């Protein structure tokens, strides 16, 4: 059983919701990333989304754009990310890891080579922001064959018919983008989210996780009431951005942001 499915079935038994932090790998420099990942797990992360830095992150707001710039300036490449996952797995063999990013770095390595390496270092899922299911004919089956979950996005603008297609192709969990816009944009509306999740529940048994616009314990707890998981990115990456001059303090800050959300969600 894939670690992601395993994790969601454990959470279901415990009656808890998944807390899924996102950080951009290599931000502020590659040597910190694995330490940040362990810190996030200590603070209550159930799954980690590890961002693959890209020069042209079209779906991201300024916070994650700048994180990509910092990581790229430090020379972080997709192959380095895979090494980070391998290093993380020497200590933590249970926390699922999802790589999230854009297609071009994967295209350059080659779909099959990437899938082989990702599976061998212990990656559990892949979310390619600019690859909807219609364009995943070739890549999707390569992931499936290696028990890597192909995770897709659903947006407020997604039609019923498209949502059905996405549910049919999706694995691991569905990433519901809570608002129209880029990452780090305005705060979400939990009632609105609940309204959009209801029809998805009828289409799929996949866990429904919500991202975009979750900033603190309050929003995390609101979303956790209606969703199976809460994804938090810009709120964490903001902390990294504010402390690039004092990187030794970042792990502690990430822990406190995430722990607040964990506490609020479990209350």
């Amino acid at each position, binding site marked *: 059983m894939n670690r992601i499915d395993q994790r969601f079935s454990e959470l279901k038994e415990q009656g808890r919701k998944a807390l899924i932090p996102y950080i951009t790998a290599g931000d502020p420099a590659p040597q910190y990333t694995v330490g940040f990942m362990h810190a996030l797990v200590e603070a209550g992360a159930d799954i980690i989304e590890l961002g693959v830095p890209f020069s042209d992150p*079209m779906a991201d707001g300024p916070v994650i754009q700048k994180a990509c710039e910092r990581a790229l300036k430090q020379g972080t490449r997709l192959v380095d990310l895979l090494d980070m996952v391998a290093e993380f797995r020497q200590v933590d063999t249970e926390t699922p890891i999802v790589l999230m990013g854009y297609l071009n770095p994967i295209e350059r390595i080659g779909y099959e080579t990437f899938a082989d390496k990702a599976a061998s270092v212990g990656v559990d899922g892949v979310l390619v922001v600019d690859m909807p299911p219609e364009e995943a004919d070739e890549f999707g089956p390569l992931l499936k064959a290696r028990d890597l979950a192909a995770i897709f996005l659903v947006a407020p603008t997604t039609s019923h018919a498209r949502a059905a297609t996405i549910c049919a192709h999706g694995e691991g969990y569905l990433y519901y983008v809570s608002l129209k816009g880029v990452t780090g944009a305005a705060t979400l509306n939990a009632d609105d989210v609940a309204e959009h999740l209801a029809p998805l529940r009828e289409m799929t048994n996949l866990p429904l996780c919500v991202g975009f616009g979750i900033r603190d314990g309050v929003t995390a707890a609101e979303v956790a009431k209606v969703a199976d998981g809460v994804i938090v990115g810009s709120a964490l990456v903001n902390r990294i951005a504010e402390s690039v001059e004092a990187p030794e303090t970042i792990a502690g800050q990430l822990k406190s942001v995430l722990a607040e959300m964990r506490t609020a969600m479990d209350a």
Partner: protein
Amino acid sequence: MTVPVTETKFSDLTRMPDARGHFGPYGGRFVSETLSFALEELEQTYLSLRDDPDFQAEFDRDLAHYVGRPSPLYHAERWSQSLGGAQIWLKREDLNHTGAHKVNNTIGQALLAKKTGKPRVIAETGAGQHGVATATVAARLGLECDVYMGATDVQRQKLNVYRMRLLGARVIPVESGTRTLKDAMNEALRDWVTNVDNTFYIIGTVAGPHPYPQLVRDFNAVVGREARRQSLEQIGRLPDALVACVGGGSNALGLFYPFVEDDAVAMYGVEAGGDGVETGRHAAPLSSNAPRGVLHGNRTYLMSDEGGQVSDTHSISAGLDYPGVGPEHALWKDVGRVNYVAANDKEVLEAFRELTHMEGIMPALESAHALAHAKVLAPTMRPDQHIVVNLSGRGDKDIMTVANIDGIEF
């Protein structure tokens, strides 16, 4: 199945893209989910109107009375004679309203925007020609208009920036990444994702997610249809060669597309060689054989490093300063329909000065890339052979750039 007699070597190319927007292995719709709905809606709107005689008539009427089409096919006799080879004919897109071919497409897309009822349009621009053409149609239709432009380009194209502002558009300088055309397109896509309910994105070239490469090509194909008819009238036959510059590639596709099945007509797409393709400082993904990649919603030849990060590009011409190229060009390179070559900045400036001096026509620096290759090509051909060059835009906007190179400050 019987093959129709009119079938030629390249007939398949007239049947592109397929239903999902693929040109062979290129093109497609690589976008984040939020945009899928808007692209499906645009595709349906376009497909339903494309063959609608009323829509076509309205488009043709605007092209005639607002843009001033047809644009002339001009025989550059003096320049041809001095080069000592083939006769060079200039397709005068520089004489269009707003001074470039870009308006053909913005007129078409503005009509689509009107049909969808969206009150706001956005655009990305490099040299500013597409931004001006968008601001112009927005003014005419009373639409709100925001234009994203790389901060570097805002600096080197001040005249066009002010033109857009005079037309009532807001010009938003983009400070991220390399601060050029690709970053402007990233920012326009981010805007569109956020404001998709009330905003129509007028993409300026034959790139982007399906259906943009197709519809931008179709709106610009008027250039090639006219050039074909004018060649038959003025030359008495089809030309031997077509030459056009290629950044994203909209003016080139517009000229080439109606000739694609004319096997005897050679085609040359001229990319921005910058400091020279051999230096690595250029914007020539096709002629430098860049790897395949995915950016801005389509798969194409894309300048990127080994890790898949998109490369910086270099060109004297802001309008060609783009690391990718329209997916249809990528396919046409692979099947050998078009020869893709590059002209470097120095050659481009020479061609710019030569045409200005010898014909009294000041070309845009983008178009001067095509002229630079015509200069190479013409002497290899006979005087009874003919080359049609797409003079895609006029050079007024580039006077400051050329003056700076000459060490002149105003």
